[in-house]
């Protein structure tokens, strides 16, 4: 009978599931500890970058950019946009790379 066949089948399934319980699929849980650690790590990385940036890069850039601002505003406008975009990409790459290398999960 198809009915009994089905009940046997369900019984078998129940037996199997008793011995091999299905792993519960868990959606990514909020892990506050990892979040805080990533946050602190990024702060340290950026802190070093920012200080180095203030000391070295801005000293080199200040005068040429000031001269460009007073001599050719159109070129200055596009240089400004280019610098913003370039710095954004570089900062994002550097921190992503450092975070990947340091692997915060392994620091526990």
């Amino acid at each position, binding site marked *: 009978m198809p009915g009994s066949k089905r009940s046997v089948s369900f019984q078998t399934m129940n037996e199997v599931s008793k011995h091999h319980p299905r792993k519960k699929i868990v959606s990514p849980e909020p892990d506050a500890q990892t979040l805080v650690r*990533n946050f602190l790590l990024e702060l340290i990385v950026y802190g070093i970058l920012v200080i180095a940036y203030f000391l070295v890069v801005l000293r080199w850039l200040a005068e040429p950019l000031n001269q460009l601002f007073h001599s050719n505003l159109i070129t200055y*406008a596009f240089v400004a946009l280019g610098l*913003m*975009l370039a710095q954004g990409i570089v900062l994002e790459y550097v*921190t992503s790379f450092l975070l990947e290398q340091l692997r915060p999960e392994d620091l526990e």
Partner: protein
Amino acid sequence: MEFPIAGVTVNPLFLAGIGFLVGILGGFFGVGGGFLAGPMMFWAGVPMNFVVGTDLAHMTGKSLVAARRHRALGHVDIKLGTLMVAGTIPGVELGAQVIERLKHTGSVDTVVGTAYVAILLVISVFTAWESLRALRKKATGPEADPLVAEEALGVEDALGFEGIATRVHGISLRPMISLPQSGIGSISLWTVLAVGFITGVLAGVLGVGGGFVRMPMLVYLIGVPTHVAVGTDLFEIVISAGFGTVTHAIKGNVDILMALVMQTGAAVGAQIGAISTSYVSGPKIRLAFSVLPLIGAVMVLLKLTA
């Protein structure tokens, strides 16, 4: 530190701090953060014309960092963002013309100020009400109605009020397009362009970047999941703020050194904000977002009454 272009001396750590603060807001909510950065820069002694242009420049870099991070998380719908920009640009132009007309009548401050406060209050109250409703819906379990893209994005989201988005999806004005990244099977191209246009008009009239208005519109009118709305909004800000940077810089209103310093703080804030969205459900993001327009409205009210 002296910034020779703007001719002012400002502590660079203070500027980086402002950047960091608005970076977190930008990465998390998809807003430019001009409502906060502008007054703080002005308070630090930066001339007003440089405040506007420099803020736009730093917004471009910060939004780029946040948008790239959101893209890595699968939270940017480039197709939708590009189409919205096409509608937004003429909208901003129309908004600017409306302002010019109002200037002639001499009532620009009152009209724009009142409209600004009213619109921001409506957005704030509606977003808070809807997100609380969505949170209650999710808590009840079986009634929860997750959005299509929820599983694909690996984040939680739900809407407490889907009536408008459902009606908008029902408009069958050809050509119809699909937005798979946002989990939208079919929507009229004209609807997307119109929403972009309305956002542009409001941004042009109110003189804001548009994040306040665009993010809720993407969620409630087009039906985009919150996380994708935040990422797509940032993608749009990169283009609009980049355009604004060039036009303001040509007028001599951008101190790029100051913007670069601000961006060092903003970059880390934007990344933290963007990453944090993965740990928070859509309704909670919207509930927290509902406070921002309220702050903006209070600031304008104070300015109007001063």
